[in-house]
């Protein structure tokens, strides 16, 4: 398929503008600052563009088009109502007087409160733009906490080897040394290993609970106790919050800082990779380190941006966060309510365990135990048929199913990480199981089918080596 740039033709246009209605003046500017050559944007008519994007859209798998059990990404249904509601809040400039945007501020204020309640945290910032951005925010809060309390020797952040890659990257960006602890034989943090590395040089421990294997860190209270004894902070990666809403709260487990992914747990669309939104919640003692501003309410009932956070870790981005995403998440929370959120978590966990049980017969489940919202298949057994997890994944595409997250977490070889979410029906899960077994049968009887897959997709298997070698990055 051609690039839109390759459809360019001089003289075409999809644009119209009113004629300039003011008297013109000569442009007074150094000659070298005036553009010589027009940017090579495409010249096309509107229908061409419409067809272009129509064709492109049809080449995408999406939650709307089919099952998308991408582990750790919580590809749940993105309700239509979210979009309609967000449409009412598009036209707000960030530098309007607060009295003219009381509705937007109230929404943010309410959302802060609701997210605080869901996580068991005392204060929330909505500023971070994504999960990883929330992690960075959290780590910078840790940093401020350390400085403020004079813990000059705290240079390390501990995290399990099953952690999301963004955890170490974010800790590093905040200037910490990263220490990975091995998981135990049950897939959880190995408490003994943990005790070995836990000392006063530790600034924070980053965990996600349930962890990326979908397993609940059963020693969480012990870990929290140890951390706090050493004045370290416990950080909760909210990527997996969808398993526990209304069941247990990070704040109650002893976590001091939490980030959330509104685009995962709270049903806002993933937009091909973003925008997300990664609010961060903290316990009372860390409130003063939050980024500026947060939304507050004064005694007259007026909402306002509170910039009066003297020990703030700073500003993580411009303005106030991804407001459009917040509107969607807020809509979702109102629709679901307290009962609905809890029910969502329960059904997400039910779905995952159902799949796990259905698959465990012939697929090796890594650390096969009651899981929460997701579980991981250890794909090494596929080697005996001469195929890899990658091949298996590509074959799933032929059946219209988006593969699970593959090759993560790193501690499971040839991993397939499956997160069905609560919005999928039993029928959809049964269909997935059926396809999984069908492909397994193919792997056993005719492995070449898998190795050459996919066949029924808009393109056949793509060559990543060529891509990285030629580095053709623009049309």
């Amino acid at each position, binding site marked *: 398929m051609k690039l839109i740039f390759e459809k360019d033709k001089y003289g075409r246009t999809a644009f119209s503008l009113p004629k300039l209605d003011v008297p013109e003046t000569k442009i007074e500017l150094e000659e070298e*600052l005036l553009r010589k050559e027009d940017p090579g944007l495409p010249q096309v008519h509107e229908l061409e563009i419409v067809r272009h994007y129509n064709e492109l859209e049809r080449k995408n798998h999406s939650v709307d088009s089919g099952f998308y059990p991408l582990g750790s990404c919580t590809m749940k249904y993105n309700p239509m109502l979210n979009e309609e509601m967000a449409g009412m809040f598009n036209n707000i400039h*960030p530098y309007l007087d607060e009295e003219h945007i009381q509705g937007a501020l109230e929404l943010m204020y309410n959302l802060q409160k609701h997210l605080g309640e869901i996580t068991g945290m005392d204060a929330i910032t909505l500023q971070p733009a994504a999960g990883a951005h929330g992690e960075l925010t959290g780590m910078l809060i840790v940093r401020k906490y350390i400085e403020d309390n004079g813990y000059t020797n705290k240079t390390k952040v501990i995290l399990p080897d099953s952690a999301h890659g963004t955890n170490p*990257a974010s800790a590093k960006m905040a200037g910490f040394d990263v220490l990975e602890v091995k998981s135990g034989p049950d897939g959880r943090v190995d408490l003994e290993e943990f005790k070995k590395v836990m000392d006063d040089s530790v600034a924070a421990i980053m965990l996600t609970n349930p962890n990326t294997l979908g397993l609940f860190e059963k020693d969480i209270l012990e870990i929290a106790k140890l951390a706090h004894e050493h004045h370290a902070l416990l950080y909760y990666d909210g990527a997996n919050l969808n398993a526990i809403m209304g069941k247990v709260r990070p704040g109650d487990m002893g976590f001091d800082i939490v980030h959330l992914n509104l685009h995962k747990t709270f049903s806002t669309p993933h937009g091909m990779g*973003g925008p997300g939104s990664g609010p961060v919640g903290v316990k009372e003692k860390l409130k003063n380190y939050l980024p500026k501003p947060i939304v507050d309410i004064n005694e007259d009932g007026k909402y306002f941006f509170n910039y009066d956070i003297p020990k703030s870790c700073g500003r993580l981005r411009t303005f106030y966060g991804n407001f459009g995403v917040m509107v969607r998440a807020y809509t979702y929370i109102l629709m679901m309510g307290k009962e609905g959120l809890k029910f969502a978590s329960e059904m997400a966990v*039910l779905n995952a365990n159902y799949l796990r049980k259905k698959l465990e017969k012939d697929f090796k489940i890594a650390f096969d135990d009651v899981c929460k919202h997701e579980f991981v298949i250890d794909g090494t057994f596929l080697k005996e048929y001469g195929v890899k997890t990658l091949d298996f994944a590509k074959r799933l595409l032929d059946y219209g199913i988006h593969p699970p997250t593959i090759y993560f977490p790193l501690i499971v070889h040839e991993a397939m990480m499956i997160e069905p979410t609560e919005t999928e029906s039993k029928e959809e899960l049964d269909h997935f199981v059926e396809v999984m077994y069908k492909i397994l049968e193919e792997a056993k009887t005719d492995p070449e089918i898998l190795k050459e897959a996919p066949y029924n997709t808009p393109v056949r298997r793509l060559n990543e080596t060529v891509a990285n070698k030629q580095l053709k990055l623009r049309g």
Partner: protein
Amino acid sequence: MKNFPYIPHTEEDIKEMMKVIGINDIKELYKDVPKLFEGELNLPSSKSEIEVKRELQELSKRNINLEDYAMFRGAGIYKHYIPSAVYQLATKRNFLTAYTPYQAEVSQGTLQALYEFQTAICELTGMEVANSSMYDGGTAVAEAILMASRVNKKYKALVAKTLHPEYIEVSKTYTESQNIEIELVNYDKKTGRIDLDDLKSKIDDNTSSVVISYPNFFGIIENIKQIKEILPEKVLLIVNAYPIALGLLEAPGNLGADIVVGEGQSLGNYMSFGGPTFGFFASKKKYIRQMPGRIIGETVDAEGKRGFVMVLQTREQHIRRARATSNICSNHALMAVISSVYLSIIGREGLKEIAYQNYQKAHYLARKLIESEKFEPVFEGEFFNEFVIKPLFDLNKFNDILFEEKFIGPINLGNFYKEINNTALFCVTELNTKEEIDYLISKVGEVDEINL
């Protein structure tokens, strides 16, 4: 059992599934979870669509609707025209509800759209490579500073004081913990451009990068070439550009910029209270391996057919973990695609014309304000579509009067620069009609009578 429209489970389903799992109660799935929270969340109960819609409508009504207002305020987020096709195309559901294109074969829509976006950004900025988006302009600048330090292993960034004040804050937040120093460079009080002498005096051996805005926060067009000329070879010039202006102004890449970043909102995105918008990020090709964020490249499939995939993933966290170029993972792909649709619609002639109209309309207003003798010029430097001007009366009170007439007046620069109070930063775009501008000027004419 209450049914939720977003959850398909029937009582029957739940029973059957529990049977397969071998449990009798959902609680058994949580038996390993400590009983720390037994009650109910203190949240409202589940509502119906009708009720939720009413509630959000109520909130929405407590905001003014800028559709109905003449807008003379910019300062980083701009009210430009968004052609009708932009959102209708870019937010099609199979774009909207897809995620990061991990499985390229079923994500060619996303991948090609982002590849086209990268292409457009290269064209606009005059750079060789671009990534597929950052969160916003502020984080793009901050990440550019970090990238420059990775490139030249130097750890001081000289940042023009006329970079958007919030971008400066973000840059400081991002760099502080990495021991990169941010030093501000003054502006020339006469021209409003960067003070070249101050810049020169601050360059030292540890200087990694110089960051300027094009145009700067005062709307004034910096001379990138002149700045580049005084920089030592190893110092990277980072230009934060307002993309609409690039329809009129020479591409930073042609004037010596090493990294060009910016806020992309003006390219067809809603103002959306400042987010989500997106940052763009482009550089010389030789720095590509130090670039943060996702990058799309062209390749072929097993049959030799063109296709697109994510490339250079070894820079990223899921492989490189703590040693990744950045922690950015989810970016603002949707907004990037929105801008890509926008740029395809306006095309090269459209961008030129928009830029030209922005320039002309802003200059018309500036001229008329000066002629009114109620305003005094502040800087001599040439501006694009924003300008700084000093009223001989109370700006905030004047803005209140304008508001009553459904006009959003300029921001007061005093909110951002302590040394400049009661001074206006006006913004004019292609959406401001002559009629609006003339009306604003007529209001200025009435200032004496209303005694501000």
